[in-house]
């Protein structure tokens, strides 16, 4: 068994490895190289050194996008996870029609981000029209509009993960806790939450990186209006790349900075929540 595994290993691994190299490793390395270049098309780039990186940090819109994205991510991570967990708790009680509710809550996830963005733009503008305003009137509206949108989209998905986690809690553990006189809140805090910690790890990881990488929804909902004030990082990078002649390299440099940032935060978060997971 071991032997044949070793023998056929390359054959099984090769397609994935090749796809990963072509689809990820090569573009990634090329991207890093390009961030040090001035170019119009990616095939004829001219090396210019680290000048692009200086421009990145001299760009006010980038710094604004950075904290705007951070604020957005924090708000959305907290809201999505709390609400998803609450819904999951509700839907693991024996309520009639649970399966139907689960399906309905999950469905928004099946719609692409751009479409969602336009749908919510219509909905929210429809409401704001009563007050003679629109979503792009101020970046605050854009911010909360985006929060509402991603909550609607992602709560259902995270809910499924939490439900799986909650259902995996051994019944006897809860029962034992109750026998010992723990009331509902105590069971939640001292049994349920620690036991679903792996789900929390996954969900915070997903929501955190989703928040930072959000692009489609931002583009469709407000496209950064007004004055780039509702622009998240990914959109800022995109706009830099195409906004000015000769700024492709700067956009690329922003993308590298962006990657480092997301990687750092994701790894840090993973380490933090992993620590709190308990062994069954």
């Amino acid at each position, binding site marked *: 068994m071991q032997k044949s595994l070793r023998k056929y290993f390359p054959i099984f691994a090769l397609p994935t490895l090749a796809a990963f190299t072509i689809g990820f490793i090569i573009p990634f390395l090329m991207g890093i190289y390009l961030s040090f270049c001035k170019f*119009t*098309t*990616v*095939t004829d780039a001219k090396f210019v050194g680290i000048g692009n990186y200086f421009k990145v940090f001299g760009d006010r819109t980038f710094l604004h996008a950075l904290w705007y994205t951070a604020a957005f991510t924090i708000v959305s991570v907290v809201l999505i996870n709390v609400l998803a967990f609450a819904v999951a708790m509700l839907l693991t009680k024996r309520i009639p029609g649970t*399966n139907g509710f*689960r*399906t309905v809550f*999950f469905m928004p*996830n*099946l*719609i*692409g*981000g*751009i479409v969602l*963005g*336009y749908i919510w*733009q219509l909905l929210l*503008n429809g409401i704001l*029209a009563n007050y*003679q*305003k*629109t*979503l*792009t*009137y*101020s970046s605050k509206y854009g911010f909360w509009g985006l929060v509402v949108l991603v909550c609607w989209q992602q709560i259902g*998905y995270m809910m*499924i993960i939490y*439900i*799986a986690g909650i*259902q995996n809690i051994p019944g006897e553990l809860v029962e034992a806790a109750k026998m010992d006189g723990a009331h509902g809140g105590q069971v939640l805090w001292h049994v349920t939450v620690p036991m679903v910690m792996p789900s929390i790890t996954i969900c915070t990881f997903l929501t955190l990186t989703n928040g930072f990488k959000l*692009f*489609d929804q931002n*583009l*469709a*909902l407000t*496209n*950064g*209006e*007004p*004055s*780039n004030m509702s622009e998240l990082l990914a959109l800022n990078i*995109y*706009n830099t790349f*195409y*906004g*000015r*002649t*000769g*700024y*492709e390299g700067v956009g690329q440099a922003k993308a590298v900075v962006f990657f480092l940032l997301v990687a750092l935060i994701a790894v840090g978060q993973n380490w933090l929540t992993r620590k709190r997971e308990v062994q069954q």
Partner: protein
Amino acid sequence: MKKRVISLLLAAGMAMLTVAGCGTGNNNSGNNAAGDGNAAQDGDGSSEGSGENGDVSGNGQDGGNAGNVGDEGVSGNGTAADNGSVYYLNFKPEQAEAWKDLAKEYTSETGIPVTIETAASGTYESTLKSEMAKDEAPSLFQVNGPVGLASWKDYCYDLKDSAIYKNLKSDDFALISQDGQVQGVAYAIETYGLIYNKALIDKYCGLDGAKIQDVSEINGFAKLKEVADDMQARKEELGINGAFASAGMDSSSDWRFKTHLANLPIYFEYQDEGVDTAEAVKGTYLDAYKNMWDLYITDSTVEPTMLSGMTGDDAAAEFAMGEAVFYQNGTWAYADITGNEVADGDLGMLPVYIGVGDEENQGLCTGSENYWCVNKNAPQEDIDATLGFLEWVITSDQGRTSFRDDMGFVTPFTTFTEEYQPLNPLVAASNAYIDAGKDSIPWVFSTIPSETWKNGVGSALLEYAQGTGEWDDVKSAFVEGWASEYQAANE
């Protein structure tokens, strides 16, 4: 059982996410035309709904047409190696079909394969960037003017000896480098101004105490403002919602103001300085720009706080349904307007009077933002095939008929004689101004240093209109933004 349902759901979810991911990855900017699309578009004035976004792309209103990338007319048939082939990356989604038909016809006549691909609306520049990096790069592409050319000048074949250059009416329609290379040739001339509804103006003239008796009396900003203000005050009597169609600042519409309207103060300043382009501007006529903008947002169909969400389609619809009297746009807007409340015979166009210069003799704004460039890095036989194809397009009957009927372009080529002029009342209106000897205003906005400048001015205009910003912000975006963007783009 329950678990199985969940895992199925999860699996389905993952699959959908993957699919959605790919889909949006490719299309989002296409769709975004409707929502905005500043990213890559740029002032364009293309026939129909033009957007001004993207360097060369445009077409906000045609968001619906997005997504044509990948279609092609005729595939190669084996002779490609000998006679070369043509690959045209088309910029206007609304004309994709017409080009494909032409390509088919040309191939059946000559056997030379012609591939037409169309970038999704608002994504021309990004599509071009990736297509040009391929081995099979487009042999024919477009730039939007001098600024767009800056990115692509190293790819432009010298068109000095080509038929399209030789048949050009004037060198004004070519992009010629300082050392005399013909890098791009315009193929469509477009005109914009204040489109008006004659029927509504006549109705207004019939009212008691009307400020004018005939539309010809509007011959300057002062008169225009007087009339518009009066119309606005008596909108119930006239059965309209406002004098001007909404000055929407959604990206499908904001180019009408941050680019096309901005053209006027820039042009008059260039006139004063005696230059064609500038490293920095003073903003001499920004007060006039402000007056006009104030007029647009005050005598409007909607409250200024609603402007950020109003689209190009909204404005076109208001005008086409007879809810507004004036609508700043160009000859390309005809397709959006025709077939509704406003009869073709009621369409007219006034110059955009901002109260500067010799208004008596001011004409419409005429220019081009569509220049053909031939890729010099393509194999020589492909270059030859491309030049041959273009020659055929502007000289053959099929090509010229298609330009007239299907695309509706006015072209700068001498081969387009009287019978090949499109039947567009707005084009007729613009020709009338030229015949009357009025001075056309060129499209100097093609010298605007970058997209970012336009976006900065557009955002400042919007904030001023909403009351969340000051006019000084527009000024600084206009003047200081110009200097810094020029520097950023030319360092």
